[in-house]
């Protein structure tokens, strides 16, 4: 479990950690779009160097990024194989029925490989350097325009933040319930797949009941502290835009220009 790096956050004090989470999210998304514009070795080289630079700026150990790529490796290899054997063009080295090994296929496969690695590195970088709390603040801030079409953005934001806040609580409870059920003779993690699925039921039901209790109490506590959905509220937590965020936008703009010049 601990090795899974998807969605893991590693606290730090680097420039990347301190960036505005809204900027980080939008730029990561933008970067993924840019990656699809690359179509020759030079453009991929530029993207690769840019990604490497960003990764180094986080001051995190490279192993964490490798662990981000690791779970996707089978997917990447599979995509590679398909590209290699089904793309035709240029010089054909080997052919058998629908399969062919061509120079265009090999080149294409390399490009796809780079593309996937670059995209995974950048998205791992986002989750590694942004706390879930910041991501939820950023999401609610980015959703603000939806207020115009009467989406209850503030309520959704509070829901998101409460959900995140209760993840560790419910995790603890799950462990406690599992131990209690083990003490009653439930066997987790062995037997056939069906048996293992059945063993989850005695965890889920108490967990669900307890979640409802939490919700009821929380409702009272929130009401007692004056929370009402029909009245406006002020906000304590604000996200601040700094110069480094503007600079990062300029960097991405420069990257876009360079890619436009070097791509074929």
């Amino acid at each position, binding site marked *: 479990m601990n090795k899974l790096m998807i969605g893991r956050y590693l606290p730090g004090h680097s420039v990347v950690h301190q960036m505005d989470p809204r900027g980080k999210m939008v730029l990561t998304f933008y970067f993924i779009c840019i990656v699809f514009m690359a179509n020759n070795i030079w453009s991929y080289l530029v993207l690769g160097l840019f990604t490497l630079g960003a990764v180094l700026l986080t001051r995190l150990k490279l192993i964490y990024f490798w662990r981000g790529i690791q779970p996707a490796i089978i997917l990447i290899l599979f995509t590679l194989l398909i590209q290699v054997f089904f793309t035709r063009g240029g010089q054909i080295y080997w052919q058998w029925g629908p399969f062919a090994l061509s120079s265009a296929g090999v080149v294409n496969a390399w490009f796809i490989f780079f593309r996937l690695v670059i995209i995974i590195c950048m998205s791992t970088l986002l989750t590694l350097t942004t706390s879930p*709390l910041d991501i*939820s603040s950023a999401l609610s801030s980015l959703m603000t325009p939806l207020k115009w079409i009467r989406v209850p953005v503030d309520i959704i934001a509070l829901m998101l*933040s*409460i959900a*995140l*806040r209760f993840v*560790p*609580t419910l995790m603890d409870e799950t462990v406690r319930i599992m131990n209690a059920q083990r003490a009653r003779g439930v066997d987790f993690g062995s037997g056939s797949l069906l048996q293992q699925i059945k063993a989850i039921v005695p965890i889920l039901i108490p967990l669900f009941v307890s979640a409802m*209790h*939490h919700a009821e*109490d*929380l409702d*009272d*506590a*929130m*009401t*007692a*502290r*004056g*929370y*009402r959905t029909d*009245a*406006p*509220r*002020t*906000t*304590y*937590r*604000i996200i601040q835009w700094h110069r480094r965020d503007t600079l990062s936008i300029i960097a991405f703009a420069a990257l876009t220009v360079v890619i436009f010049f070097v791509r074929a």
Partner: protein
Amino acid sequence: MAEEPPIISIDHLTVRYAEQEQPALDSISLTIPAHSWTAIIGHNGSGKSTLIKAMDGLVTADGGQMTVAGLAVTEQNIWQIRQRLGVVFQNPENQFVGATVADDVAFGLENARVPRPEMLTRVDNALAQVGMTDFADREPAHLSGGQKQRVAIAGILALAPAIIALDEATSMLDPQGRASVLQTMRDLKAKENLTILSVTHDLEEAAAADHVIVIDNGRLVASGTPPEIFAEGPALIDMGLSVPFTEQLKSDLAAGGITGLPADYLNEEEMADQLWKLYSTM
């Protein structure tokens, strides 16, 4: 202070829950003097928590009148009353709304539409008052139960209430947590001139209060100073305060013919030690 009108007055309050025949509170009348520490004691299910919830409008009254901090408890006034009466609930986990300590303290202020600059100072002050300043950026998962309860108190203090109700606020805490929360409350009461209402099972805490109210089966059974209540004999105490678990165990064991345990009060750990000793000599 006798001339000051009571801060809470309750007149023939009745609360009935939909699924129960017997009313949770049956025509209760009482007054609470301002700036006092009042302990409300009673068995589980006696209706003492319902009393607090009724004052804060969390359950609706089926009859009777209440005045809290100068305001009649009505639908129009209830949001103002909630700013003057803060409640610390039993479960530390279930009243922590914010993602971090500071966010949680700010929650009530956000609801009260306090402007942000003022919010910053009020959050800092409230955290300082409960001694949690160093924990401002912590997430609740990294706090003990006692620390969470102190954050809950800070969240209420930030709203500058006149009354703080503790609804079994220390019952889920370990002894140190309990002591630290009660000490915090005593200091605050002296400093802020607060009125404290404490629903409790803790005999020592009740003995230290200015007033004790005993509720049983939804009815007010007794009300007075601790010496008055305690003088009325063990029957009344038993009614309100369940005998500590270890004492219960001791008397049950004695009834079953197992004697030889020391007569003094034992906490659970000491009790376990004594039981081991006794068992090894049997």
